[in-house]
Structures are given as C-alpha cells and as structure tokens.
C-alpha cells in the first residue's frame, strides 16, 4: 500500500492537516472530496447554462414563425446546448461522483494521482469560458450542431471554429486525465481483500467507462484537429475537391460518439445498481452478470457507430452489419433492466427520493432503449433519422437516463457528503415536478418526429404547432423544477437533521462505515474486507 499508511510519522502529521482556508483551499486542493465537490458544482452550473439555452430554443419553437431569435443564433443555441450538456454537465457530474465515491468505496485514502486530479478539474472552466466566449464573436459561436459535421464546420463555418476546437481539446485532456486517475486508483488502491469481483458496481462501471474514455477521447481530439487543419491549413481530409471525403468525418466522429453515449450511461447503471438493492433491502440479483453485461456493452459500443449514419449511403452489407450489432446491444442492456426488476422482486421496498429517481430511471431509460431499438431497424431509421423522434430518443436516455441517475446519486449520497439529511418533502416535490414535466417535454417529441418534423429547425409547418407549444410548456416547467433542487442542496449543506453514518437502513458498502459527513481524509488505514 501507499507510504501514507506505512510511515507512522507522515500519518500523524496528516491527521492534523485539515483543509486550507478560503479560495486557496479550492484552487490548490488535491483532496478527492474537494475536487469531487468542485466537479459537481461546476456541472450544476453548466446544467443551468445549457438549460437556459434549451429555454431559448423552446421559446422560439413555442409558435411557428420566427419571433425571438434568428436562425443563425438558433443554430448556435442547439450547438452549444448540446456541447455544454454533454461535456459540461453530464460528464463532469459523473467524474465528480467518481472522485467522491471511488476512494471511499474501495477503502482508499484518496485518488492515486491527486495533483493531476486538481489539474484535470481546473482546466475545465477555461474550456467552457472559451466556448461560451465564442458566442460573442463576430458572426457568433459554433452553429453546426454538437456533431460538427464537415464541411459545414470547416469551409462553411466562421472563425469561432478555432475557439471551438481549442475548447474541445481542453475538455478532452481533462476527461483523459480523469479516466487515467480512475483506472490507476482502482488498480492500485483497493483495500486488502477488495478483489475485483467484490467491488461495488459503481466502481466497476466507472472502471470500464474510464477505458472507453481513454480509447475514444483521442479520436475526438483527432477529428477536431482535422477540422482545424482543413479549415486553416489547407488539408482536405473532408473536402472532396481535394481528394477527401465528408463522410469520413462522420465515421471518425461517431467512432468517438457512440462509445461516448455509453460513457454517459454506464456510470448511471452503476448508480442504479447501488440504490435499488438499498431501498429493496435485498442484494442485487446478478452481480456477476451485471459486470459481464457492462463489459459486453462497452465492447459492442465500438461496433455500432455507423447506425448514426444509415442515410449517408453505405453499402448494404455495411448497413446490415451495423443493424445487427446495434440490435445485439439490446441484449446486455435488457439483462441490466431485468436484474434491477428481479432485485426489487420480493424485497421490502421504501420510496425515498433516490429510489424514486431510480425507479423513474428504470422505466424512462427503458423507453429510451425501446426507441433506440426501433432506430436500429435500418429501413425504419430512414424515416426516423434526423427527426424529433431521435431528439426524443436521446433525451430519454440522457435526461431521464443519465441526469436522473445523477439526481438519484446526489440524493443518495448527500447525507454522507454534508452530514445532514436533505429535506424529504422538498425532494419529493422536486421529483414529481421533474417527472411530470420531463415527460410533457420529451414524450410528445416522439409523435412530432413520426409526423415528420426534422430536428434543428427554428420554424416548422403549422401541423406541428400544438405539440410544440405543449413541449415548450413542459420544457419551461422542467427548467423551473430544477430550481427546487438547488434550493434543496443549499438547505442540506447549511443544516438539517443530522445524518447517521449508515444513513440508509439497507445500504451496504465501505462509504457507509465512515462518519457522516465523511472526514476530510478517510481510510488513512485500509479497512479489512471479509
């Protein structure tokens, strides 16, 4: 184990070594809990900034006609909303959870590479400041969609593209460093007796996610660099006139992009697999099969990228290959859902807010999975592709999937982080308001898409008007509901009923054996795992 635990002198010094005071604590911190908090707060901020952009989009789409923004700005909003939510809200939230929880779950004193940990967080604010600043450039910020298809993002974009590329590079570096840290920590700092097959599922899913990140973030870095050189340095990777191919861009992008969507959902699976057994007071039905299912999803995620590109004109054989592989992913995903349901079966359930969000996750994520299965059927995909049906699909898996799991996690571990129970009534209000509004927001999008409304348009035919008004109302309500969450978190940090160490009656795992709030340094001597 590390020197911290073997050198008694260093150990003793550490005990008296609390956090520094004021701003310096946060700027210089190498403590996994501080960094986890920073990540989580940053992600919350980004969630609101990206959400504000969604509100602009929904306000414009409230009625047919152009009323609030011009199409160019509308495109900037859809683009930056997507980038911020993916790279600024969901991914940092999971990294924050990993920072807080992985060391506590495996009985480690901290992350393995604490200085790199500080660095990987603190470059993020720069990345997003650059991205947001680009909106104020002449001609506005990036407006080619978060997928930045060439040549729209190369030849036909304005100079904000350079800033966009730079900021994506920084986000990528941050993610890679975070992933390296997770892998090194899990491989080296597990407490004695914590074998791989004893690790909590949240640790397992993050372990696999981290490998996915290391595999694909460099691909993203590669593709943005190619965009940059195509635009500014005379290369023609994606320009047919110079011997390139615009569809090559999509292949590279989605080779990153598809594993990326699993990067945003595997940790969610880990969270749900922690919460459901706790509130069912019954062990997870199939631990080993969950681990294998997660691994097979991760492997398959490298073989399905072109299902985002069925309409680009591929050979039939390729279309068939990608259709079959995509359908195959439904199998391990199904195994997960069946496992959660079997865990609840004949348990003794209670329905605190974390459990409510988890139950909503299971139902709504599965609905997103169903529409994903429908999208996998290539001939039908020709009709669904680039319509609101796709928008509905990925918001079900990302909002009621990833975001709901993050909410569930926040409620579940808040008492451990703050030492106070959150306000259960307020939490239930937040849950029910979110649940209803999110479905008013995203469910009608299925119908609008099937009826033929393309995505990424600032104005639409009259037949779509009523549904869009309804969707916008759902959107505003969902946005407002999230303010309840902020209020609740602030309240919980400031005070509230004292949390016990165990917090939840049915909770199992090392993090529940230490004090609430978790001490600044936990597990300076490794715990014994039976």
């Amino acid at each position, binding site marked *: 184990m590390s020197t911290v635990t073997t050198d008694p002198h260093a150990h003793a010094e550490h005990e008296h070594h609390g956090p520094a005071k004021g701003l310096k604590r946060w700027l210089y911190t190498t403590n996994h809990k501080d960094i986890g908090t920073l990540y989580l707060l940053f992600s919350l901020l980004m969630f609101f900034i990206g959400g504000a952009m969604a509100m602009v989009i929904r306000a414009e789409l409230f009625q*047919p*006609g152009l*009323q609030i923004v011009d199409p160019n700005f509308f*495109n900037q909003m859809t683009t930056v909303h997507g980038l911020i939510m993916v790279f600024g809200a969901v991914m940092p939230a999971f990294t924050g959870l990993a920072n807080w929880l992985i060391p506590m779950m495996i009985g480690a004193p901290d992350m393995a590479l604490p200085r790199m940990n500080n660095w990987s967080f603190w470059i993020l604010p720069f990345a997003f400041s650059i991205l947001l600043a680009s909106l104020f*450039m*002449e001609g506005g910020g990036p407006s080619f969609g978060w997928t930045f*298809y060439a*040549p*729209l993002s190369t*030849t*036909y974009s*304005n100079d904000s593209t350079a800033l966009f590329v730079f900021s994506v590079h920084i986000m990528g570096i941050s993610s890679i460093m975070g992933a390296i840290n997770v892998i090194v920590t899990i491989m080296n700092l597990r407490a004695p007796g914590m074998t791989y097959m004893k690790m909590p599922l949240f640790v397992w899913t993050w372990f696999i996610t981290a490998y996915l990140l290391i595999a694909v973030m460099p691909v993203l870095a590669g593709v943005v660099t190619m965009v940059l050189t195509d635009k500014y340095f005379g290369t023609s990777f994606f320009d*047919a006139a110079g011997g390139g*191919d*615009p*569809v090559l861009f999509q292949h590279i992008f989605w080779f990153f992009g598809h594993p990326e969507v699993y990067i945003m959902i595997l940790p969610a699976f880990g969270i749900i697999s922690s919460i459901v057994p706790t509130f069912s007071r*019954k062990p997870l*039905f*199939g*631990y080993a099969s969950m681990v294998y299912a997660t691994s097979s999803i991760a492997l398959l995620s490298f073989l399905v990228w072109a299902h985002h590109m069925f*309409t*680009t*004109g591929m050979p*039939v054989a390729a279309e*068939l290959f990608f*259709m079959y592989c995509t359908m195959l992913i*439904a*199998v391990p995903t199904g195994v997960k859902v069946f496992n959660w*349901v*079997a865990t609840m079966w*004949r*348990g*003794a*359930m*209670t*329905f605190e807010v974390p459990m409510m969000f988890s*139950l909503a996750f*299971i*139902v709504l994520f*599965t609905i997103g999975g*169903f529409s994903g299965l*429908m999208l996998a*059927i290539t*001939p*039908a995909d020709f*009709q669904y*592709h*680039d*319509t609101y049906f796709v928008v509905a699909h990925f918001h079900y898996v990302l909002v009621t999937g990833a975001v709901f799991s993050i909410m569930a996690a926040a409620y579940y571990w808040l008492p451990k982080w703050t030492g106070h129970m959150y306000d259960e009534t307020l939490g239930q209000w937040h849950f029910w308001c979110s649940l209803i509004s999110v479905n008013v927001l995203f469910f009608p999008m299925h*119908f609008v898409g*099937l*009826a*033929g409304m*393309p995505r990424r348009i600032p*104005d639409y*035919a*009259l037949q*779509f008007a009523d*549904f869009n008004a*309804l969707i916008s109302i759902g959107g505003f309500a969902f946005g407002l509901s999230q303010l309840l969450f902020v209020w609740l978190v602030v309240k919980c940090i400031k005070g509230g009923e004292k949390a016990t160490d165990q917090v939840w009656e049915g909770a199992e795992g090392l993090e529940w054996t230490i004090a609430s709030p978790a001490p600044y340094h936990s597990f300076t001597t490794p715990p014994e795992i039976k």
Partner: protein
Amino acid sequence: MARTSYLCWSLLTFLLAFSTQSAEMPLNMTQGVTEISQQVYDLHMKIFYICCAIGIAVFGVMFWSIIHHRKSKGVEPAQFHESTKVELLWTAMPVIILIMMAIPATQTLIAMEDTSEADITVLITGSQWKWHYKYMDHKVEYFSLLATPRQQIDNKLSKGENYLLEVDRPLVIPTGKKVRFLVTSDDVIHSWWVPAFAVKKDANPGFINEAWTRVDHPGIYRGQCAELCGKDHGFMPVVVIAKEQSDFDQWIAQEAATQAAAKEAELKLLAMNMSKEELMTLGEKVYMGYCAACHQPNGMGIPGVFPALKGSKMALEDLPAHIDIVLNGKTGTSMQAFDKQLTLSEIAAVVTYERNAWDNNTGDLVQAADIAKAQSK
C-alpha cells in the same frame, strides 16, 4: 373519488381538444404511397408492438413489486440472488425476438437499396438552401426554392396551409414507374427526404448517392431537408408531384420546349438594353429570391458570416470582380456560382441592383451582354 374522476375527465377533454386542434398532425409514421413505405411502416409497427409487449411484461413485474413488496406492508425481504437458469433465459429470449425482427428488416433493406432497372433518373443537387432537379433523360433542369413569403415567416402575414412546405417549382415524376434519384450536393451535406416515399438520402458534396421510388397514386407529396445545412436549413422543403404517365409526358415535353425557348430568348436579349427601371425591378426580385438569405434584404449581411454589400468596396468600385463573384462564386466559401442558376439578364439585373440599392448609388447599369462577355472570358 368524485374529484379525481372529475380531474381525469377534464384532463382527457383537454388532451382531446389538443388532438382535434391539430387534426392534421398524424400521431404515427405515415404509411406512405409506395410498396416500400408500406413495408417500412409495417416494420415500424412490428418493432413497436414488440417493445410494448416487453414493456408491459417488465414494468408489470416492477409495479407488482412496488405495490406488493413494500416495507410499509410489513413484508420481510427475501435474500435470493443469482440464478443461472433465469439469466440464461432472459438472455436467450431477446436474441430470438431480435432474430425474428432482423429477417423482415433485412428483406426490406435489400429491396430499398436495389436501384437497378430504373425507368427514369433524376439528379438531385442540394445547395444552401435550395434543391436542383435535373432529368437525366430529358433536357430539363431547374431549381426548386421555398415559396412561402418572408412576411409569413416574420409573422406579418397569416400563414398559409402549406407554410414552409411549399416550393416555386416542385419535382414532377410519373406514377407507376421506377424513378431513380441520384443525390449530391454543391456545398454542405443536405438530406433529401419525402416521408411518403420512405426515401431519405444524404446529399454529400463530391459524391453521388442513389435511391429510388415507385409511386402508385398521383398526388402532391411534401418533405424537407433533413440534415443541418446552415442558417436556412429549416427553409428548404421538398415537394414532389406524381402525375400519370401521359400527363407527365405532356408536362416534360412542354417544359423542355419552354427551357429551349428561354435559352433562345436569352441570346436575343444580348442585343437589347434594359432600362434602369427594368433592371432594378428584376434585380430586386432576384436579390430577394436568391441573395437576401445571406446578404440580408437590407444589404447589411451578417457580420462575420456573410459580408455586407451595402458600401462594400466591390459593389461600389470593382465591377468586373463583382460580376465574376456572382457568376463563378468563390470556392471555399458559401458564396456559390450563380452562372447556372440565373439567366444572363437576371445576373445583369441583380448586379445592377446591388450597385444602386441601399445608397450604393454608383449609377452603373449592367446589361446581359456584359455578363455574356464576362462569361466567355
């Protein structure tokens, strides 16, 4: 109890009110008007019902647990876990269901991608933000632009029935014939989509994609560009008219004759001079139709994206360069070549307009002959 049922009823009437108001919006995918679109619809419904069945089973078990296996009922939790038998079962079952689904999907897909033995071929070219149709077997080609007036989009006029789904010149195809589409683009990626045919194909610059359809019923079918292609992506609809073969033959013959005649007239025009008034009127019309999307109706452009023409050095001074950029575009920018899209007199008029509108007041008059001269250089 009475209150809940009252609530339920009012919710239902509210939803019904919604659905009657939007009576025109179907709630499901269109069955379309071709054999393929019908097959696609059937696949869509099949996979949808499969999902529903799985959903009912899984959520049924889950809600049963939620209702019956709750602590407040005083149940003791069971402690069972791991069962290889169950786990094998719930892995194998989905595989079988998926294979059942994959077979018809494969058949339809192979049929959709078989573009051989077409009766007629149309080359479809997307560009920012219009479609160009060229009949490969006839001497007919033309652009197809959004026909919805700007005032409707800006909420200054009430919106028409086919708001944003109407074009000046629709594509015309014969019924009962296999029509092959060759799809490509002049600038960014677009995607040509007509839901009623279940045809959606990306238009990739520098490459040609193929698709086909065989429409059985005469009618007007509407779609839109489906791939984000820049600022006016939402404003490039697709309209296709399917006509009986005899009507189609008549139409295409007439169209070919008109286009040939227009070319001749164009040559005659070279010898004539248009008055400033005529040039400006025609010029304004062309400008609003072809240029204003980027350079804006007031000539101010969008800073950083599309340059202003009002007060621009080129529009005030350099006439040859001005004609050249309109004729040939500028590679590597979204300023496209209008050589093929506009007639000589239209180009002359729009250049004249740009040099005299918005206080540009150069007094320059440009005639069709000047454009022809520039073209031959």
